[in-house]
């Protein structure tokens, strides 16, 4: 379905802008992209959820897996999220205490 991924570099971080819906149909593409970054030795990653209209547990699982991979390498995976509906999913699962979540890419990188 509808998932958009846009990769850029900013201050030594890889910034992955995600748009559309992250569910069981689209999460594999997100997972692949994040695994590719780690394989390319990119361990400082911002996932910008700015364009995401919907995320469910399959999408959360992909982010958890990616966090695990970069942390193993001493890196970090931070999120950008401002949309209340998406933030709510992180809050009710408690994952807002696991991921660093900023309102902008700069905030996310600053930690």
């Amino acid at each position, binding site marked *: 379905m509808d998932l958009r991924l846009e990769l850029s570099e900013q201050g030594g971080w890889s910034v992955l802008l995600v748009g559309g*819906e992250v569910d*069981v149909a689209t999460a594999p593409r997100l997972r692949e992209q994040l695994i590719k970054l780690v394989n390319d030795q990119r361990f400082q990653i911002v996932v910008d959820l700015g364009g995401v209209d*919907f995320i469910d547990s399959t999408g*959360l*699982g992909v982010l958890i*897996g990616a966090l695990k991979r970069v942390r193993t390498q001493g890196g970090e995976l931070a999120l950008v999220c401002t949309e209340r509906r998406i933030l709510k999913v992180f809050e*009710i*699962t*408690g994952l807002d205490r696991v991921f660093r979540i900023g309102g902008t890419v700069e905030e996310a990188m600053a930690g």
Partner: protein
Amino acid sequence: MVVGPEAEVEVVVLALPPRPEVVSVARLVVGALAAADPSFDDERGADLRLAVSEACTNAIQAQLGRPAGPSHDAPIELRFEVGPGCIELAVSDHGGGFDPDRLESHPAVTDPARLEYEGGLGIPLIRLLADELEFRAADGGTTVVMTFGPRVSTGRVVS
């Protein structure tokens, strides 16, 4: 919709092939049904879309995990009962069933060891979002029945 003057409870049924790509169709339908009932606000509509997404994902994954054959390919069925101020949603699969009381328990999300598990968040989310939840063993599979009122009690989090 469905909440016209003469409306009591209306039933909408949707049968979908067990493919990840159709979960979005299930979300669309439940979103439209919720949007048509003024007692469900946008946020509650989002809850319903999330819950239906989780339930369909589980149903589809259970079936696709089975060997080729009818229980692999049979449609999953969604049944929406829409009454004033209440939406009951049943998702039925042929995925072989499971015991919801014996799910693997995971460390708390804040425990670093939790990062070992990408899964296990679906049913806790459904529990949280639905006002009532029941798993029925049925016909070589499972029927998950979720009931939604206009608002979930606030302050709940997945435990």
